[in-house]
């Protein structure tokens, strides 16, 4: 029986988010909070491994109370248990402080049932770093396996896994000891529509909620803003290049004008003859 913990985060949908141009902060009300799309793949992979080998999938998240909704989404995908750690002391955490808090939570979950495998998403769409997964692995002192795009085998009795790690031009096959941590690529699986029983269970599901005091021995100076070595000194809107020339006239005229401009660059183009 494998116990797999997937780390998930609720994020604002940055695709439709609006920024306040005066303060350069997000207008949170403009963007719905969603399960980080990359984390859906982490949960889906955990569920598939559970189906393959038998076991339990827990999800854990650090976030504000509404993050319960993201946990429910994971239950829809097939997670068995959900844990939300929420506390003002966590606010303002960078990746180092986030990995510390999540490690404490995973250790606590491990007391309930020992954890074999931790799965993270490739990255979050708001933090957008991919640093939290390896950070958790280092703190738990288990091997971090990033860019995983296929799980070949998880062998619990002999204590090893074999996975593919995506490279820029292919992949490598890695054998690692178990327990370990995966950060998974989006392409590792497709998240299907959730089966109805999961939806029904999710609608009523209440996750376990912990505050800092519930996490056992913990160094508060390593949490939240205080525990974050990085600070955001300045934010500004990305420079928008000012538009250039709009070509005028009929399609034919516009193209002719463009060709004149490109003549100067003609050394660049190698035109292929029509094959007749």
């Amino acid at each position, binding site marked *: 029986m494998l116990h797999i913990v997937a780390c998930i985060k609720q994020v604002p949908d*940055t695709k439709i*988010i609006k*920024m306040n141009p005066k303060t*350069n902060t997000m207008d949170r009300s403009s963007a719905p909070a969603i399960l980080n799309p990359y984390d859906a793949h982490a949960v889906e992979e955990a569920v598939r491994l559970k189906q393959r080998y038998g076991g339990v999938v827990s999800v854990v998240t650090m976030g504000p109370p509404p993050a319960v909704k993201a946990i429910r989404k994971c239950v829809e995908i097939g997670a068995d248990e959900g844990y939300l750690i929420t506390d003002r002391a966590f606010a303002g955490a*960078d*990746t*180092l402080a986030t990995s510390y808090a999540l490690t404490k939570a995973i250790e606590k979950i491990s007391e309930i049932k020992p954890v074999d495998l931790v799965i993270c998403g490739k990255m979050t*769409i*708001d933090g*957008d*770093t*991919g*640093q939290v997964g*390896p*950070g958790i692995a*280092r*703190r738990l002192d288990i091997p*971090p396996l*990033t*860019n995983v795009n296929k799980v070949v085998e998880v062998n619990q009795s002999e204590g090893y896994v074999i996975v593919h790690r995506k*490279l*820029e031009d*292919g*992949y*490598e096959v*890695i*054998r*690692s000891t178990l327990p370990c941590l995966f950060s998974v690529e989006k392409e590792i699986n497709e998240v299907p529509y959730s089966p109805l029983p999961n939806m029904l269970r999710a609608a009523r599901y209440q996750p376990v909620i912990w505050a800092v005091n519930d996490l056992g021995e913990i160094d508060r100076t390593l949490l939240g803003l205080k525990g974050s*070595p*990085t*600070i*955001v*000194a*300045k*934010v*500004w*809107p*990305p420079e*928008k*290049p*000012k538009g*250039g*020339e*709009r*070509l005028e006239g009929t399609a034919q005229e*516009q*193209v*002719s004008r*463009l*060709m004149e401009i*490109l*003549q100067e*660059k*003609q050394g*660049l*183009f*190698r*035109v*292929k*003859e029509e094959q007749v």
Partner: protein
Amino acid sequence: MNLEEYSGIWVFLEVKDGQIAPVSLELLGAGRQMADKRGVPLAGLLIGEGVASLAEMVFPYGADEVYLYDEEIFRDYRTESYMRAVLECVEKHKPEIILYGATSTGKDLASAVATDLQTGLTADTTMLDVNAETGLLEASRPAFGGNIMATILCKKHRPQMATVRPKVMKALPPDPNRTGQIIRETIELREEDIRTKVLEIVRETKEKVRLDEADVIVAGGKGLGSREGFELIHRFAEKIGATVGASRDAVEAGWIDHQHQVGQTGVTVTPKVYFAIGISGAIQHIVGMQNAGLIIAINKDPEAPIFQSSHYGIVGDAFEIVPILMEAFQKMPDKEVQYGGKI
């Protein structure tokens, strides 16, 4: 932590296909400027097996020193073994800044190292600067899906670390007269101590798309309407010897493979000419191509934001404009010479 003890700027030298990765040379260029501003040495950190000969090669690109770990245990990149080398070297020589390429290897290594050093790490940096007096690294990056830029500082911890996107910094033109010092390091590390093994490395036979090295890119977006519509992009690109790029929405629609994606979650490109066809010009796309020499947009919506980011714009239907363009190229004078030249 006594910040004063930390001095010097390092670049992690990534080895790819037996060569120093281009991004590492770019970082030496950026690192050189910062080291001069600070009046400190610039060092490369080179880890691998049989890589000693590569160490010499980075001096012309600006490095003053190279710390070299050349041992069998480093034949393949593995987080745990490489991390041990970086950690030991940092402990011994105490740099104030370490830069890594934001590649899968660079990001993996930096994330692990930062956790052990309990220091700050800025991801996917696109702008770098350093304060000459305090040595404070100013690492700026797009945040919230590219909606804002943010400058990140790490005031109380050293070394300060950042991963930096390929293709945004510039390598120096190599100066063959520059030399430097190679510092050989050794490490006590046994194979049994490393919990991961690389069983096999598989290079995909599929020809790799070198978007980042292309001189001319023809990129298509959702505006092409369908997989069949996207064929127009392939035909145009093939005709003019360009590489095909795409927006994320075209990739997500399944019309083209992810490796063609330009933008924040795709490749950053710097071609001499970039055609954006049926692409709306979302900021996440723009950040990946805005440094192209000449950007030409073709879009049927005159209000499309892509026109704000291009040098020349044609308002019109791609299916009307592109065939006319292809014809015009066909008629381009002295094309014979060039075409012949290619063969």
